[in-house]
């Protein structure tokens, strides 16, 4: 298997090959001997050159966090054989942009109506959780194509709240 992995904007090339019990691992052309065991759905123990790493993965709709010790890294994994990456972020394109809830909460105010013209940075929807309010702003100048939530409704992290065209 060959993967392209992007960490902090750096692209790495990783070849992995399973030989019965062992993994052969070539990173950017250098072979690295590794010893891996999975201890939980999202936890690996890696042994590389005598050093141990307990690696944890957090997955959400849009990203994958890799924790090593108490440091968190965002890693995007692409399988070059497939047309697009697994974790290709939504809304990178031109055209309609989706406004997503960063966290679960309750919609306390909808500041726009469909068809409204909005400026970049203009507040669109206010979500409240644990007594704190978060105003979700328009990422660009445009027209509100859709509002998918109503005042008083509950949303989950990653839910699309509105679309700006």
């Amino acid at each position, binding site marked *: *298997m060959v*993967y392209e*992995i992007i*960490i*902090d904007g*750096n692209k*790495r090339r*990783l070849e*992995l090959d*399973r030989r019965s*019990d062992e*993994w052969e*691992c070539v*990173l950017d052309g250098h072979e*690295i001997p*590794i010893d*891996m*065991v*999975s*201890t*939980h*759905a*999202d*936890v*690996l123990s*890696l042994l*590389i050159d005598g050093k141990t*790493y307990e*690696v*944890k*993965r*957090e*997955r959400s709709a849009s990203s*994958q966090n*890799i*924790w*090593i*010790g*108490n*440091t968190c*890294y965002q*890693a995007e*994994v692409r*399988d070059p054989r497939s047309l697009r990456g*697994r974790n290709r972020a939504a809304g990178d394109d031109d055209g309609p942009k989706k406004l997503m809830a*960063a*966290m*679960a*909460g*309750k919609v306390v105010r909808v500041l726009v109506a469909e068809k409204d013209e909005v400026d970049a940075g203009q507040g669109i929807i206010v979500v*409240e*959780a*644990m*007594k*704190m309010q*978060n105003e979700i702003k328009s990422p660009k100048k445009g027209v509100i194509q859709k509002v998918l939530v109503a005042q008083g409704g*509950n949303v*989950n*992290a990653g839910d699309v709240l509105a679309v700006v065209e």
Partner: protein
Amino acid sequence: MFKKILIANRGEIAVRVIRACREMGITSVAVYSDVDRAALHVLKADEAYHIGPSAASESYLNIAKILEAAKRSGATAIHPGYGFLSENAKFAHACADAGVKFIGPTAASMEMMGSKTRARQEMEKAGIPFVPGTSRGLESAEQAKEIAERIGYPVMLKAAAGGGGKGMRLVHTPADLKSALESAKSEAQRAFSDDEVYIEKAILNPRHIEVQILADEHGNTVYLGERECSIQRRHQKVVEESPSAVVDSDLRQRMGEVAARVAKAANYTNAGTIEFLLDENKNFYFLEMNTRLQVEHPVTELVTGVDLVHLQIRIAAGETLPFSQDDVRLRGHAIECRIYAEDPDNNFFPSPGNIRLLREPGGPGVREDSGMYEGWTVPIDYDPMLAKLIGYGSDRAQAIERLRRALDEFFIGGIKTNISLFQRIVRDDDFKAAKLDTGYLERLLQSEPRDSSYKNDDVVAIAAGLFAALDATSMTRGNGLQPASSNNKSSGAASNWKKASRFEALR
């Protein structure tokens, strides 16, 4: 002793009280709102009653519903925890009227200490030290100048109706006093429709030190050492420790005796806390009294060796304090971190959601009082505190080492937490040197985080690839019936993971 106690709270403190009841052989009764049916305190209690919708005003703050649950369950006492109704004198009254013992002080004591001006008047009578100044509004700039000369600069102008920093001005020299008074008054008028402003000596870089007291219903009052709570963000305590690194045994005794005097002046019973400001010259000033169990009570428990919740219950049941002041011995050092579901990298915004992976620390010198579990969804409706992590050591340095180790073992996946903030604090030189005051945390947050030097990008790349490879392997292996449809992605992957994991473990 009570046979059955209702706990009018949720989260870690409800679990804490339930554990005390279990230890004492008392049946515990939980109450819960809609969203809390699967909360830990409901699972841990012996009995549980639904008291309404998720909004606290309709459940945990609803006196009638709580007393109804007490009646239905046959509970003869109520522990209010902290927050919610714990300092609500009306609730204490209502309990008394319903013939249910409120585990805390009397309504009268709560009322006296709940009003800032009344508390100050009573405490002045009892000769308790305050920050020098007036507690009446200033009549003129001349009067302000006169008082400022007497108490000495710098001084602080404060709106009488104030709060949240509005209508406050710090004044360093007489020349600035007049204009500061004018602007404070007009800001107070705008903010509170009341332009009354009073003057106090400004305490620069104060430490927040509080003293735990216990008073039984037979006139015995003891103090149990101090807690340093100077590490605050927006007046919210974040890290607490006991003892304070700057309080020696003489100062401890003096503060403790004043605290006991405050409690006696208020006819106080049960557990309470007297908050003081400590200035750079180790003068201390009464700030306020908290008429309940504090969030940070565990640090006192660890250094004194007593169980404050057991004692609260025993006192409420009419027992005499089982020890006197001379029996109280402090040993070692304890530090508490309040673990919140909030994002320290995004202005501490709350982060409710599902806890997908939980690894809790253990071993020597580590106590965790938790209200969460793996698989539980942190609701959006309440305070985001998940748990308290407390490190104990034979001295402050060891307590910090233990805490650092425990924080590094702690992992809460799926939501954001402030664990990384504590990991930074325990490594900070000022914290290690106990150079603390109420401005400490703000300074730390404004400074550049130390670069975590060693970057593990290679390991991250390898791990990310391995996760992907294991996902792919388990997708195609086995019975072949596992769907890869997108709407099942996360749960499907999780179950595949189970298999992959088992396969690995059998190697």
